[in-house]
């Protein structure tokens, strides 16, 4: 194709958008509404995922060592634990460190335990992190079998529930987003179809004077892409401003307490790019599938 022809296709595409002003507006609105929903849901989904992994990453297995075991052998035990499948890291924590941690975690009230330092009731322990948090229970079972292990703690019961909740949250989110994307595709292709039906005569005439299908398709391709991308602008603005605001509030008031949101900088540009991509793809897909029907003359 010659550059001149490409230029013509661009001019045609934008002229046609102007001439079919209301239809273009309808298409852009359809894209805007659906992408807005998609972007909001995606932001929520990604954050649920992020928070869930934070919580999951905190899940650890504490294997308390029998008091009768000699500290000289601890290194060998540690190696044995590391050899287990699905284990990421094994850390040793002496009972003194364990007590310090406990006292610290309790804050002011922990001071009461300071007196215990001389007759520490705790045991030395290995802290085990698994490769995947979901493997915790299985690994814990393995660890329990070792003779030097007195007791295993990983928040039995609670951990299983937590994983169930996070899994459900993830799956529901994915289904919602996929459903929305499909709705968007349907809605947009339908709107674009309407604009093309009004131009069916035009296409027929183009074919009769010897225009190739490619030649006819190009302006529609450009137009569909432009409409899709134009529809992505408002959602991107809304999600950028909105997310920044929510992020600030959460960080100031809640952040230090228990949850942390995904940082604005990688998330929003990525979402924006994705929205432009989805908008463009849906627009092109919608207009090309619609124009295809009229090309068979």
């Amino acid at each position: 194709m010659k550059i001149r022809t490409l230029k013509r296709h661009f001019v045609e595409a934008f002229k046609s958008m102007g001439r079919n002003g209301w239809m273009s507006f309808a298409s852009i609105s359809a894209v805007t509404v659906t992408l807005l929903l998609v972007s909001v849901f995606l932001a929520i989904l990604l954050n649920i995922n992020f928070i869930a992994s934070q919580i999951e990453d905190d899940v650890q297995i504490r294997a308390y060592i029998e008091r009768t075991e000699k500290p000289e052998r601890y290194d060998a035990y540690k190696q044995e634990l590391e050899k287990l499948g699905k284990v990421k890291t094994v850390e040793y924590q002496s009972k003194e460190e364990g007590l310090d941690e406990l006292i610290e975690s309790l804050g002011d009230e922990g001071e009461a335990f300071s007196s215990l330092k001389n007759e520490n009731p705790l045991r030395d322990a290995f802290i085990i992190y698994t490769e995947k948090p979901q493997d915790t229970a299985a690994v814990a079972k393995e660890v329990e079998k070792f003779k030097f292990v007195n007791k295993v703690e990983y928040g039995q019961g609670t951990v299983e529930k937590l994983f169930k909740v996070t899994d459900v949250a993830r799956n529901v989110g994915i289904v919602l987003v996929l459903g929305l994307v499909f709705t968007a595709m349907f809605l947009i292709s339908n709107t674009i179809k309407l604009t093309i039906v009004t131009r069916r005569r035009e296409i027929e005439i183009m074919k009769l004077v010897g225009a190739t299908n490619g030649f006819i398709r190009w302006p529609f391709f450009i137009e569909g892409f432009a409409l899709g991308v134009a529809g992505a602008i408002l959602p991107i603005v809304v999600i950028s401003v909105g997310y920044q605001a929510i992020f600030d509030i959460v960080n100031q008031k809640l952040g230090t307490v228990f949850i942390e949101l995904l940082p604005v900088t990688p998330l929003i540009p990525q979402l924006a790019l994705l929205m432009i991509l989805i908008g463009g793809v849906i627009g092109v897909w919608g207009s090309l599938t619609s124009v295809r029907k009229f090309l068979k003359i």
Partner: protein
Amino acid sequence: MIEMVDVWKTYPNGVMALNGIDVYIEKGEFVYVVGPSGAGKSTFIKCMYREEKPTQGSIIINGTNLAKVKERQIPKVRRKIGVIFQDFKLLPRLTVYENVAFALEVIEESPKVIRERVMEVLDLVKLKNKARMFPDELSGGEQQRVSIARSIVNHPPVVIADEPTGNLDPETAWEIMEIFKEINARGTTVVMATHNKEIVNTITKRVIAIEGGRIVRDEAKGDYGYED
């Protein structure tokens, strides 16, 4: 130039529109196609610019067999055939100039050539001074002249017209016929389906009559032959 050998066309709904057509049209000929409505005239014409594909037989135009041509090649074939319709088929949102130029843009002609050729054919159909107007600002005859200009702008060896005067008043129809005569005089083959008895009987040319999907009459200097 145009050669049809044993052409049959049966539509998917069972209508048998053409039942064994054999015809040979020489380069530079002027041919009327006449016959009652529903006799197969339109199908005959449509097969010539490959809007319809024959069920059987071969149609050779400019050395290409339209019955065998691949879907992808159809645009190339159509560029060598000018087509004119009863309802003009102009693009309503383009000006007269743009409508004519469109046929050249499609084949990626250079802007310089486009400008020259468009002005040349607009001069031929006497619409140079209305180049910037839109189709709905023109009379029926003027619109038909635009569509004729569009059909000949890339100098096709064959022009096919399907009832070009069908929507026009008698006086305008004569003007249009003058243009066709001029085009034919320049060496272009013209095939015209028509119901206009007066024109066929006055500007005498070869007449092919189609009835029931067959050629029932083919005369070198024929007349219309129907009473309507």
